[in-house]
């Protein structure tokens, strides 16, 4: 896991919900991966100067295939659009990464925006997740349509999400901060029959 900043001055979007009493052998397990650094990157994928500069800073090449992602330790890059990516980095390092990207791409028409505190990363796993997804999203989450590593931006109940399927079959969901409480309340109800555990 990432080196979470435990400074009491910080509050994750779901901090007030972790006290939730956990169901025994829950069918749905929710983990909030708090305070991950998240950057929105815009640039021209045809521009080698841009792509190589990013690769230098991140240590991984930008994923170019639609809906793909790359991972390197704590650094994850989601493809969002041909000229837009979401960078998820170790907690607390986003400032440095942003600065490095700016200096590496000085003068180029790019945009790097730190959106770390604006959204949170939530992992959903468990035997009930497949059914939970059928109730919560209009996207077909079957492996044949949603393989490991794919990145999907879609709706989740009445909010939006960017989600990625992991090797273990669990889902990482990016949830907007102001909607995260609603997201939790929905999860609580929709996973009622499977039991929900939160950590």
């Amino acid at each position, binding site marked *: 896991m990432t080196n979470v900043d435990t400074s009491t001055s910080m509050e994750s979007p779901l901090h007030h919900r972790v006290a939730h009493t956990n169901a025994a052998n829950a069918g749905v397990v929710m983990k909030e991966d708090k305070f991950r650094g998240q950057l929105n990157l815009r640039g021209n994928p045809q521009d080698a100067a841009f792509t190589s500069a990013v690769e230098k800073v991140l240590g991984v090449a930008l994923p170019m295939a*639609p*809906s793909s992602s790359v991972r390197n330790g704590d650094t994850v890059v989601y493809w*969002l*659009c041909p000229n837009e990516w979401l960078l998820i980095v170790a907690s607390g390092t986003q400032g440095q990464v942003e600065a490095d990207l700016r200096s590496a791409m000085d003068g180029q028409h790019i945009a790097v925006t730190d959106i770390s505190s604006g959204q949170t990363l939530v992992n959903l796993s468990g035997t009930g997740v497949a059914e939970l997804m059928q109730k919560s999203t*209009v*996207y077909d989450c079957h492996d044949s349509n949603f393989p490991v590593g794919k990145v*999907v931006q*879609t709706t989740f109940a009445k909010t939006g999400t960017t989600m990625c399927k992991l090797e273990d079959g669990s889902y990482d969901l990016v949830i907007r901060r102001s909607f995260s409480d609603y997201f939790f309340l929905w999860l609580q109800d929709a996973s009622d029959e499977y039991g929900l555990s939160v950590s």
Partner: protein
Amino acid sequence: MIRINCPYCGEREHSEFTYGEDATRTTPDNDAPMEEWNKFVYERDNPAGEHIEYWHHAFGCRAWLKVQRNTITHDISWVGLPHENPEAAS
């Protein structure tokens, strides 16, 4: 439900999108006479049949798309980017 094949994200349910407007209108010059601006802002072909229109993939990649849809059958015959055009646009 209408499903729109987003050139970036693939085929998605239309609840991920928001409708923009008629994509066949051409914006008048900034200094065009008011009459022209009036026609532009208010008048519509509003066809019963093939309609070329903008959609915003608001809950997806947030791209604005140009879509050719039949307003009677809701069949979508073409999806592209704002500055592309369907060959058989009618």
